């Protein structure tokens, strides 16, 4: 069928099946990949376009319905002179785009509003943007940007030489994100690519036999099975390659990959699972910690006795004796659920064979681990594998594990054709890793003066069917489980058990957010017991520089929790006053205020995690940052450029970026553990210093000289002396910096130096609880974070605000249940109407090891939020949440039960 319509002001004729989604036609046939697809179900709004001047989800519109109508996409926003529209400029200036995958949809929804309402208020903006989900920003900066778009245009800040660090510089990759030009995993698949559809297990646990695949193979280019995988096991740890690329006769979770159908796209989509001959023999699954640890429980993995993946802990002092002398002791048992990353970009990528090498273009957080893992699976040398990261539409830990990579690589290798795979939303949710469900038994004691004396915390995790990052969680949590406090007598224990749940892996915080729910509830309970203000109780016990941690590490510098609490104190008092005034006129709604604190070790736990960054200056004068650290939206491309620029002494705006590509950059490790600013940032600083030294040497200039770069010439001004270097004559300059944070192994009692530095933070939440319905509205968050140094305050705030939104989800609404919540309407993440206004207070207690004193902030934003919200709910209602998410029915039940107890 032929469809004639007006697309971005141009008469357009499209030919195809009329039932084709508008989103697919735009992306696949009309070359407009600025419109993103996050769910194909109208749940996320990423594909929002204007149809006859109204916002619609392009995934819900049939091409047959577009005849004669007008469609506008993000590509139509730029001005006719090529400049950005005011709205786009505002998004850039306010840091409203992080990963950028929701940005086109947000922009179009906002455009719809601004065409109808010239100066909208916050409430109107929330209504207009309510249909677009963002998982990165926490929405605050998006609202600011839309508010600002109706004001005077912003002047874009381009810091001069030496002034990049600390500047609110616009992100270097921002222009591509606000114009829809950024290319994500599904955006640049070659036209001649074959496609993969993965056939997955509908059972949590089953044995299976494959029938005759001949008929399918006849229709397809290939049907890949376990037998086609040279080494059929992958996993994060070198000694735990327990997850098959394609299951071999047994599946251990619902959603596990069994077969890969490879063919032209229409054909693989047209083959239903019922046409695939698999004879299933379902078995009773082991679901949850109790089932996994029951006497005689069946084993999830035959060679893992007791279903135990790993355990270990930290011991310091004499806990039993110390508890005996405590003036107050509190205990609690806390439970959390599987949580889904819900990045708006599902897993996607494609591969092609280039001679005897395989090249994979994929959305990932960790190109070098991907490279080595693919080499291992395919039995190739790492040199034979090239990973080219695409823009990454959100990761949060979920794109640290392999997804499409081995499948597209195996198929492309074998078929010698490009092969692509894009997960559907339900597939992404069923098949990929989750946050570990935790059961945390906590006991804390303090003396009569409110000084903590002892704690005993046991954290038990459901690690799902495969190890993934389970060991990382089980190792990190015991170090953090006493909270950011000086506790002389400590026993903590972490243990992870296999179940037939989805593999639990890395998710922003590696188990620490779960542990924080427990230790912060204990702080509140002790403070209440002794009638000490909850903030002051924490202040009294806060770890400070000079203190010794439970692992025996002396914190020499940069332990800014007390400063965070000092900064929060006036907000805390005001919030109490406001809450008391509101509650005095009490009705069915009561308000409360709560506080949460955290600390977070930056980088890997007691493991080497080096970064190497290079800078090149070509004979033609091109200054290039070769950056192997993947920017998944958090801003490392910009942060590293700012750091390198000041270290070198040239303006950040002169850098060109080469990012992620394993053929063109050095290994800067994975984007996880809040490590890129601290570790790769330090490497970038050293690379900048290295290049500066080389230039100064060529110019025979002193260390105070200033540099400028124009064309092929570097001008070096050293006092009154001015020297010029002609790069065309000197040839290319290359510089390099590396950094590996100094840590030591932990001994059997967990003693040692697990991290080189720690971030600290405290947040206050004010909530309103509907006592009759059990609903919680978070009214305000004030977040104080010790970040060492804010390299780019806008990006730092973006991390904090986005983390808070995820912490809010963890506390109040997010619970992944296999089969039941495998979409974005049954699995709820916060919308623009759920995240309150957030005040960020940045504390800069410099870390001498870090670049310009900086630490990390990627994960810390999330950690204190749920404790603060839950503390506020307790303050309002007297109900302590022992299980999250605190869904309305759970809170209601607890309120009713508490009332019954009082009666």
């Amino acid at each position: 069928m032929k469809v004639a319509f007006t697309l971005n002001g141009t008469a357009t004729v499209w030919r195809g099946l009329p039932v084709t989604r508008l989103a697919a036609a735009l992306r696949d046939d009309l070359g407009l990949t600025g419109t993103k697809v996050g769910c194909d179900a109208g749940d996320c709004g990423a594909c929002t376009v204007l149809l006859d001047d109204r916002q619609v989800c392009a995934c819900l519109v049939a091409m047959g319905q577009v005849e004669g109508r007008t469609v506008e996409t993000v590509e139509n926003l730029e001005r006719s002179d090529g400049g950005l529209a005011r709205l786009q400029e505002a998004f850039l200036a306010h840091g409203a785009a992080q990963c950028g995958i929701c940005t086109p949809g947000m922009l179009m929804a906002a455009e719809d509003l601004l065409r109808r309402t010239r100066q909208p208020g916050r409430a109107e903006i929330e209504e207009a943007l309510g249909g677009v989900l963002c998982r990165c920003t926490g929405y605050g900066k998006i609202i600011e940007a839309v508010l600002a778009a109706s004001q005077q245009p912003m002047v874009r800040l381009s810091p001069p030489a030496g002034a990049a660090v600390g500047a609110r510089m616009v992100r270097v990759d921002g222009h591509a994100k606000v114009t829809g030009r950024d290319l994500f995993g599904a955006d640049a698949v070659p036209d001649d690519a074959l496609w993969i559809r993965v056939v997955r297990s509908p059972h949590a646990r089953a044995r299976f036999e494959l029938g005759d695949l001949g008929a399918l193979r006849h229709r397809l280019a290939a049907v890949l099975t376990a037998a086609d995988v040279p080494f059929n096991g992958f996993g994060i740890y070198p000694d735990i390659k327990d997850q098959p690329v394609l299951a071999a006769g047994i599946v251990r979770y619902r959603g596990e990959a069994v077969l890969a159908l490879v063919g032209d796209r229409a054909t693989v989509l047209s083959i239903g699972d019922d046409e695939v001959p698999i004879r299933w023999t379902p078995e009773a699954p082991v679901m949850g910690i109790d089932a996994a640890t029951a006497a005689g429980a069946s084993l999830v993995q035959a060679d893992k006795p007791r279903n135990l993946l790993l355990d270990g802990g930290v011991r310091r002092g004499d806990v039993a004796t110390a508890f005996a002398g405590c003036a107050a002791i509190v205990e609690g048992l806390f439970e959390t659920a599987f949580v889904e990353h819900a990045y708006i970009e599902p897993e996607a990528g494609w591969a092609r064979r280039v001679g005897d090498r395989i090249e994979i273009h994929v959305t990932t957080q960790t190109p070098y681990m991907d490279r080595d893992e693919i080499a291992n699976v395919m039995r190739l040398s790492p040199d034979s594998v090239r990973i080219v990261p695409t823009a990454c539409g959100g990761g949060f830990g979920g794109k640290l594990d392999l997804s499409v990579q081995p499948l597209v690589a195996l198929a492309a290798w074998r078929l010698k054709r490009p092969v692509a795979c894009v997960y559907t939303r339900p597939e992404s949710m069923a098949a990929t890793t989750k946050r570990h469900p935790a059961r945390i038994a906590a006991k804390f004691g303090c003396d009569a003066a409110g000084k903590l004396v002892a704690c005993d915390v046991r954290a038990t995790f459901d690690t799902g069917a495969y190890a993934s990052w389970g060991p990382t969680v089980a190792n990190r949590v015991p170090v953090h489980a006493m909270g950011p406090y000086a506790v002389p007598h400590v026993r903590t224990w972490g243990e992870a058990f296999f179940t037939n749940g989805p593999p639990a892996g890395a998710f922003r915080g590696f188990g620490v957010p779960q542990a924080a729910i427990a230790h912060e509830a204990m702080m509140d309970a002790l403070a209440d017991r002794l009638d000490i203000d909850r903030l002051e109780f924490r202040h009294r016990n806060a770890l400070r520089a000079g203190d010794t941690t439970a692992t025996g590490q002396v914190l020499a510098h940069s332990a800014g929790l007390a400063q965070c609490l000092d900064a929060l104190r006036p907000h805390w008092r005001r919030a109490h006053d406001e809450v008391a005034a509101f509650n005095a006129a009490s009705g069915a709604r009561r308000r409360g205020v709560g506080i949460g604190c955290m600390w977070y070790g930056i980088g890997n736990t007691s493991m080497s995690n080096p970064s190497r960054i290079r800078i090149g200056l070509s004979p033609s004068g091109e200054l290039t940052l070769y950056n192997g650290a993947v920017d998944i939206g958090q801003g490392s491309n910009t942060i590293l450029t700012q750091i390198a620029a000041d270290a070198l002494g040239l303006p950040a705006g002169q850098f060109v970026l080469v990012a992620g590509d394993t053929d063109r950059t050095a290994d800067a490790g994975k984007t996880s553990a809040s490590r890129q600013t601290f570790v790769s940032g330090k490497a970038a600083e050293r690379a900048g210093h290295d290049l500066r030294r080389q230039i100064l040497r060529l110019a025979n200039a002193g260390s105070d000289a200033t540099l400028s770069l124009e064309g092929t010439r570097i001008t070096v001004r050293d006092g009154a002396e001015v020297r010029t270097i002609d790069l065309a004559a000197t040839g290319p300059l290359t510089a390099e910096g590396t950094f590996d944070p100094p840590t030591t192994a932990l001994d059997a009692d967990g003693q040692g130096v697990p991290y080189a530095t720690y971030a600290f933070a405290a947040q206050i939440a004010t909530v309103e609880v509907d006592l009759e319905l059990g609903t919680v509205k978070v009214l305000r968050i004030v977040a104080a974070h010790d970040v060492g140094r804010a390299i780019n305050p806008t990006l730092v705030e973006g991390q904090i605000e986005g983390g808070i939104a995820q912490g809010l989800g963890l506390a109040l609404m997010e619970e992944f249940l296999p089969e039941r919540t495998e979409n974005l309407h049954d699995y709820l993440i916060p919308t623009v109407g759920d995240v309150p206004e957030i005040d960020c207070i940045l504390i800069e207690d410099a870390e001498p090891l870090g670049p310009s004193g900086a630490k990390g902030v990627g994960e810390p934003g999330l950690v204190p939020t749920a404790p603060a919200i839950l503390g506020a709910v307790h303050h309002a209602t007297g109900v302590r949440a022992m299980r999250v998410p605190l869904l309305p029915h759970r809170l209601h039940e607890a309120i009713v039960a508490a009332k019954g107890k009082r009666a």
Partner: protein
Amino acid sequence: MGAYLRPRRLEEALLALDRPHVVLAGGTDFYPARVGRAIEEDVLDIGALAALRGISAVAGGWRLGATTTWSELVEADLPPLFDGLKQAAREVGGRQIQNVGTLAGNLCNASPAADGVPCLLALDAEVEVASRTGARRLALGQFITGPRRTALKPGELVVALHVPRPAHPTRSAFLKLGARRYLVISIAMAAATVEIADDRIAAARVAVGACSAVAQRLPALEAALAGARVDRSLADRVDPAHFTPLAPIDDVRGSASYRSDAVLVLLRRLLTSIAS
């Protein structure tokens, strides 16, 4: 590949329904049910049928065309009788959904949590259905026969909804309970329409959604409200004994007992808002 028909005239559409077709209007339920697979069904797109569009005042009430979108409803000039339905319209998904999703689609999809159904029940709406052999009208309560089931017979198409004009001045309201602010499937919801004569309720129609397989009117509560003075005491008339038509279940959104408690709260608040 299936057929795709987009007729302009109702007769053509009804003729097409001689053979089974999946009916496509706003697409907001059609496409989500077809994620990641080829669409091979025969499709009848009713979006170009002029006869199914628009809202008009007619003798005895109002006619709401089957493919009226939620946004069109919100923007239509309608009396307070429709305030509740307009409130519900703003709770259906986000703006994107409201701009294309249709009233009749919400009924035909027959979700227990359909946001439009309680209000339309409280409006005493009728569903006009056409086929090649003629037309018929059903009360909405008869039209939706179960979860994901309607009384539509093969060859039939919903053409319009009809809302009768009440005998007295009327107020209406809607309340929805969900676990987040936007884009949320209801845990429970309640809608009420009350006709007022001499400061007393002349007639009341109250319906509750997401607490039974199909949204239900609460006749006992309606009877209890009849004759009541329209003031804050209205809320006191709600009694759990009125909830016998409801049969809430446990699901991912809430427990059955929570739903029962929530309905009581929602109805009291709804009546309080109507009285104020």
